[in-house]
């Protein structure tokens, strides 16, 4: 029997179909499949630091001096420092390395996107276990952690229907956000509880990637437009069966290096209003939920403005996740000190 949802997931979200639609080159699929195998099997993540980054730009022609897909070769070259000063590998679609581009070191995905645009190239940006894929400056695909199952449509134990969005968002937090358990690092300074810059974008990408793999019956979008409007939702889920829409609005509370003060209740209330606008405009919406990642110093409830009108489709319980920054022992010390004080 055909698993229709699996097929529809593949058609709407598979990296291989996206690559082929953009490039019309089967060679690039082959490259993608081999690169996925290489990154999953061959890169010594235990030995390289989490700040490890490199880029692969694909070009045509020339046979190279070595092939990055030969077992152990790239890993060895990384250990020998091949990518310490310059980190862009120019390779053909078979993985033959033509050279390492001189005078070029790409630090983040924004620079990789620009590089892809300037050089009109198919570019992979790999930051530790995170993989971004660009074609001529256009983001094609993003994998939050290559070591997780990264193929859309694969049955996972965490897979659930869209209507179970609360459980899915909670599972994402528990497995990948809580105490920076996964590869996603959101603290700039954990002791002072300073978040990384533009944290919402990072939480958005991370949650999107998780939902994309784990929603069983729908397509997940980032930055999808509301029907006939300019507005773009953070994350939108559209089910295959009925076309019902679930909207997720993400806000981060707390302080970043760039912000002068801690974002708190005001930010949360703004999020609620924003979500209300989306729900009003999106006639097919089933529900909308506000998700707060809370990096404030104190773990306290949000004070909701009583004047805000809650849209009928809005989930009445916004989801707030307090971002832990203390180890269990430090936390235990504080709790016990408080207990002693009370005595």
């Amino acid at each position, binding site marked *: 029997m055909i698993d229709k949802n699996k097929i529809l997931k593949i058609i709407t979200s598979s990296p291989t179909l996206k690559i082929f639609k953009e490039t019309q080159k089967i060679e690039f699929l082959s490259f993608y499949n081999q690169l996925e195998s290489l990154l999953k*099997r061959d890169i010594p993540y235990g030995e390289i630091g989490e700040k490890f980054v490199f880029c692969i730009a694909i070009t045509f022609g020339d046979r190279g001096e070595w092939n990055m897909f030969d077992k152990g070769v790239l890993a060895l070259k990384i250990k020998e420092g091949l990518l310490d000063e310059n980190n862009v590998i120019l390779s053909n679609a078979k993985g033959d390395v033509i050279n390492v581009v001189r005078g070029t070191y790409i630090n983040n995905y924004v620079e990789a996107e620009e590089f892809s645009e300037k050089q009109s190239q198919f570019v992979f940006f790999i930051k530790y276990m995170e993989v971004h894929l660009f074609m001529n400056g256009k983001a094609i695909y993003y994998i939050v952690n290559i070591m997780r199952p990264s193929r859309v449509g694969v049955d996972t134990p965490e897979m659930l229907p869209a209507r179970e969005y609360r459980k899915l968002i909670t599972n994402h937090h528990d497995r990948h956000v809580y105490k920076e358990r996964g590869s996603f690092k959101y603290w700039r300074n954990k002791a002072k509880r300073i978040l990384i810059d533009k944290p919402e974008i990072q939480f958005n990408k991370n949650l999107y990637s998780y939902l994309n793999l784990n929603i069983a019956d729908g397509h997940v979008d980032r930055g999808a437009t509301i029907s006939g409007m300019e507005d773009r939702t953070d994350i939108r889920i559209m089910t295959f069966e009925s076309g019902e829409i679930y909207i997720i609005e993400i806000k981060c509370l707390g302080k970043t290096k760039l912000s002068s003060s801690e974002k708190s209740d005001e930010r949360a209330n703004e999020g609620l209003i924003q979500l209300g606008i989306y729900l009003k405009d999106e006639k097919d919406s089933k529900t909308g939920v506000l998700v707060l990642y809370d990096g404030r110093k104190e773990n306290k409830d949000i004070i909701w403005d009583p004047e805000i009108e809650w849209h009928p489709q809005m989930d009445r319980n916004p989801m707030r996740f307090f971002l832990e920054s203390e180890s269990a022992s430090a936390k235990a010390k504080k709790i016990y000190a408080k207990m002693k004080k009370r005595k």
Partner: protein
Amino acid sequence: MSENSPQMLQDNKTFRRSNEILYVFYSADELDLPSLSKIGIQKCIYLCEILSPLKEIILSFLNFIYYHKGPFSKDITNISDHLVALDGIEVDSFSTYGKYSYVNYKITEAGKSLVESLIYDPTEKEKLQWIKIVMRLIDAYKDAFDLSEEYSGVDKIIDLVYQEPSFYEIKQRNGKGELIPMGDKNNLTMELIHFLEKVEESLPPKFDREKYKLDLETVLLAFFEYLYVKYLSEKAQT
């Protein structure tokens, strides 16, 4: 002997089959694929044939049965040996899997010349083009993560072929020796293909359906990706 005598018809059929097997080797050579063992040849031809109704290509269908290493056609083994004797293909290397060793073959210069003369006939050219499309996808998927670690080269697609719907159905009921329905527009494989051909119609109107219309090559790609995803799902459960 008349052109329509049973002997002549049988000979023609054998020739056509030999040509098609040669096209597989020719495509493999063009794609710079490693030489093919009999396991790999069986799987490549099986996929080319079971998918051929999609392009309404008429291949001289072989009888494939459910065998312990996937779909198997005795004719392919015989014809390959025959092609070696005729210098169309030659022994290139050996692969050892467990207790067994397998011969790997590649096309010879004489074999290539023969193919190049055969494709003056547009029907033959079309067959070659079709086989090439399927072989390119086989090439793209053979190195996908986690596929058949114990095998090498093209033989690695064995795990994908196990997921092929017409074969899978027989495998599920353990129908060893059973004939796999080839060239049938209504078998499970074609049911999946027909679904993919009009996949956008299965999406609610809210989706941008035009965006998800698939052309022939993308239908095939989606088919391969489906097999791969099914394989990974099955593996995740065990």
